[in-house]
């Protein structure tokens, strides 16, 4: 469990990081918190020729929470996002989901942007980016661009960010008025990657009836999946909505795989149960926020 040989650079500017990435070509990889990359290296499942450690690049460790949303810099650790009251005020789902990411020791090093760049379909933050309709900012030697979540995730551990590039931040839009969120997952042990997880967002209309109900799942598909369950509950007052029906609807929309820890059927069961639970609590929150 020792990595194959690689060279290492720890540039102190973004430009230099991009320059090293360009010079080293395909074999170069960005190193952020190392919580996903280093195990892959040690097990020799990945053998990059160069690691470009971005931890010394200034300005990437900021959380900017404003009216339109929360921008999370590439070096913001999961733990910092979890603790940020400003971020939670703008988009409560951030902390709710982050609390389910691994254990404190891993949250202290692992980065939120890194987990999005890593594109693990079991990663909570990929689902949050998708559900909130967020985007990432990608810096390349040719300039900076914004990539919408829908164009980002191509498959497990695969994004549309190619070539010499650093994802410098992720942007999560603010929670809309009269809306509520919830996040829940079932993991085999506390802090493990989820067997199935659901993040939801419910928005009410002016009459406090359900206007929309959307959900994103983790560990269910190859990429974070967002499903619109509005039809199952639309127009219902919060306490009269049939959340279980929304769960059943969701079960028909997903197509999970089985693995060592959960059969496909069991995942589908969890999709139903978690959907009903999270929608009910998100709706209750939406109602409070409509008061």
């Amino acid at each position, binding site marked *: *469990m*020792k*990595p*194959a*040989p690689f060279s290492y650079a720890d540039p102190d500017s973004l430009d230099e990081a991009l320059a090293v990435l360009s010079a080293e070509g395909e074999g170069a990889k960005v190193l952020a918190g190392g919580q996903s990359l280093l195990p892959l290296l040690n*097990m*020799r499942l990945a053998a990059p020729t160069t690691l470009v450690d971005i931890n010394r690049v200034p300005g990437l460790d900021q959380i900017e929470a404003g009216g339109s949303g929360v921008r999370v810099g590439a070096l913001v650790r999961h733990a910092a996002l979890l603790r940020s009251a400003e971020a939670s005020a703008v988009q409560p789902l951030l902390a709710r989901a982050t609390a389910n990411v691994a254990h404190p020791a891993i949250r202290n090093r692992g980065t939120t942007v890194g987990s999005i760049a890593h594109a693990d379909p079991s990663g909570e933050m990929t689902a949050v980016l998708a559900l909130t309709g967020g985007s990432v900012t990608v810096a390349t030697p040719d300039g900076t661009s914004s990539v919408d979540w829908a164009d980002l995730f191509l498959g497990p551990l695969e994004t549309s960010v190619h070539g010499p590039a650093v994802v410098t931040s992720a942007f999560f839009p603010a929670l809309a008025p009269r809306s509520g969120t919830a996040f829940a997952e*079932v993991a*085999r*042990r*506390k*802090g*493990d990657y989820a*067997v199935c997880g659901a993040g939801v967002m419910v928005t009410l209309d002016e009459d406090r009836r359900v206007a929309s109900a959307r959900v994103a799942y983790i560990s269910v598909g190859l990429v974070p999946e967002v499903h619109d369950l509005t039809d199952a509950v639309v127009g219902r007052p919060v306490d009269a909505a049939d959340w279980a029906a929304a769960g059943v609807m969701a079960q028909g929309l997903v197509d999970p795989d089985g693995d*060592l*820890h*959960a*059969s496909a*059927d*069991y995942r589908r*069961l*969890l999709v139903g*149960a*978690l959907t009903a*639970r999270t929608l009910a609590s998100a709706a209750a929150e939406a109602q409070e926020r409509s008061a």
Partner: protein
Amino acid sequence: MTTKLFGEPVRRREDARLIVGQGRYLDDIGSGAYAAAFVRSPYAHARVVDIDVSGALEVEGLLAVYTYEDLTGPMAEPLPVLIPHPQLTHARTGYTLVRDVAHHVGEAVVMVVAVDRYVAEDAAALIEVTWEELPVVVGVDAAEAAVHAVHPDVPDNVAARHHQERGDVEAALAASAHTLSFTQYFERSASMPMEGKGVHARWDADDSALRVHSSTQASTSVRAAIAAKLELSLEKVEVIAPDVGGGFGVKIMHPWPEELLVPMAAIKLGHEVKWVEDRREHFISSAHERQQRQEVAVGYDDDGRITALDVLVWHDNGAYTNYGIIVPINTATQLCGPYDIPVYRARVNSVYTNTVLVTPYRGAGRPQGTFVMERTMDRIAQERGLDRLEVRRRNLIQNDQFPYDWGMTFQDGRPLVYDSGNYPGLVDKLEALVDWPGLEDRRAEAATRGKLLGAGMAMYVEGTGPGPYEGAHVEVLGSGKVLVSTGLTSQGQGHETVFAQLAASELGVPIEDVEVTTGDTRRFGYAVGTFASRAAVVSGNAVALAAKGVREKALRIAAELLEADPGDLEIDEGLVQVKGTPGASIPLRTVAVLSNPLRYAFDEAARQATQFAGPGDDSKPPIAVGDSPGLEYTDYYSPLRSTFAAGAHAAVVEIDPATWEIDVVQYAVVHDCGNVVNPMIVEGQVQGGVAQGVGGALYERMAYDRDGQLQNASFMDFLMPYASEVPDVDIDHQETPSPLNPLGIKGAGEAGVIPGSAAIASAIEDAVGRRIAAMPISPTELYDLMRSDGEQVPRLPSATGVPA
């Protein structure tokens, strides 16, 4: 006496060192050593066609590559069958490096030595082995079917047919008023110590001497094995177990191939060599345990009293039988637990599969046996409409039946005789501890929260402290320090503390003055090892006996100096004094100095022992005939037989019927290990054992696929419970001393794990009303079970305690 420490919750003296990172583990030794890495078989069953090492030879920093071809003499022979047994008719062991056929994924084929582990792994990755794949056998069912053979000369895959019997079981079953028969499965898990194995060897060419550090539970026997395999004289080999980060059984297996190959390389290269096992290696090349298929037939009367029990077990021993059939014997002999089973037969067929070998893991065959017995009790309770506690009470061995002779042979080759116990007392205490009659109220309360609550219980008896012997050396230095050493090793259990307590108690010195060394063959050469909950029983008694020897000698010498009768002396706080005569005393350290008459005063203390220092008695030689200089003593304790500890566990679970998640909300243990030396340490052992019991019941399994590939060979997918999954254990003690040893103690090391799967299965069954006949069980499996047409079981009110 103020220094009486037996029975006190003395704090573990090893903790400060270990917790702040000052432990000295294998990998802390030999920073300048060359590193070994291994090429291991990627196939479960395959023949080596060719090994091409040329790629590795290009790697800078490579020092040596060894294959089977490089082994000579005893090293080229198969590894030893450590515990031969007449019923182990088809023992097979592997070689230190695969000779021609690998029998499981992970078997070492090539050893690479390089300047460091990074380079060694780089080189290993460039070695190309060409394999011819052979048919694979995985699991007891496939082994029994024997469509393919793991070893061609064992076509039925049966290594041993172990058999224990008491009475004519077939006749007794036929004569029973009621009978039940059923089949159960138990899965594999493994010891999984935090520190894997590791070996460091240093060869002193001038002295032709080898010093080996190994993360082992048996340093004396590793030493003997190295000497034999490398053809060295025993006195030229030292083996030291440094701080060991857990063993749980896997490190009692020896010699592991690496324990022989690393010293061999150190000698050949004339340089220190080290190998530290990584986690993947541990999963695929260390030992596992526990898979069995159990076919049970039981007969009982109208009152639920068992009249006959017949068990046929198919036991998966993996690819080899290096450790003999200890696990099958434990299952067969410990299965009946605390119950008076008049007629009993156990047949355990130990079968080969193309998987990692099976050797004892904490519990060692007993969790499986307990699973048979306790699930049988639950079935009888259900069938008879009896409370589960009541059916057990009716079957227990009663207090006046001890010693209880089973007429069978235990794993130490001695008669299976329970020495003492109070089993009804355990049930009474458990009933109170878990508030068994209050369970219906708790069930109702849980239902209001949408949860299914269930409770289960299980009992066990554990043969502990088997021989043949352990020894200890105790020496008082002129400084007043007391050195205690045992050949028996420690892996974090608290032996340093317990042995210090025993020595300090026996000698009458402050515990701070006692230093304990374990598992260092330079200090103590004769020992067996740490396993089978035997350290406190066997070494503990040896330490007490050796300390007693020192005490007697000290009193003899002091009596002369104080002109008193030895019988009038006592030792307290390190001072030898005449009882009831203040002032008439001499420090033990001075006695130590004077015990060694000297010619040369090399330091101030020594002066007192030189020839012109005092009047002396010139009618006698300075050392009496038959006596020896120094205040030291070595003694051994060799038990007549094993001593039998016992206990009762209860588990309460809550299950979420929407997700089938299983939460152990309460776990209660009543434990009897005879006289308790240190209750805090015993509770720690119980708590740790329960953690492994919960792991085995709900989380851990070795997920082999049909090709013999272990699908979950990492801590990502092999799920050991975290602290968050392990309940705090409610513990109550009962102390029934053992009549077999001077201290009256029984072992406590493994007990916590033994009834875990049985108790938790019982609780889940109670919660969901479906038969649980295979463990472990995960939520996804429970969901499958609930949707299947599996057997429904009646739920009995736990409060009644009388036949329905």
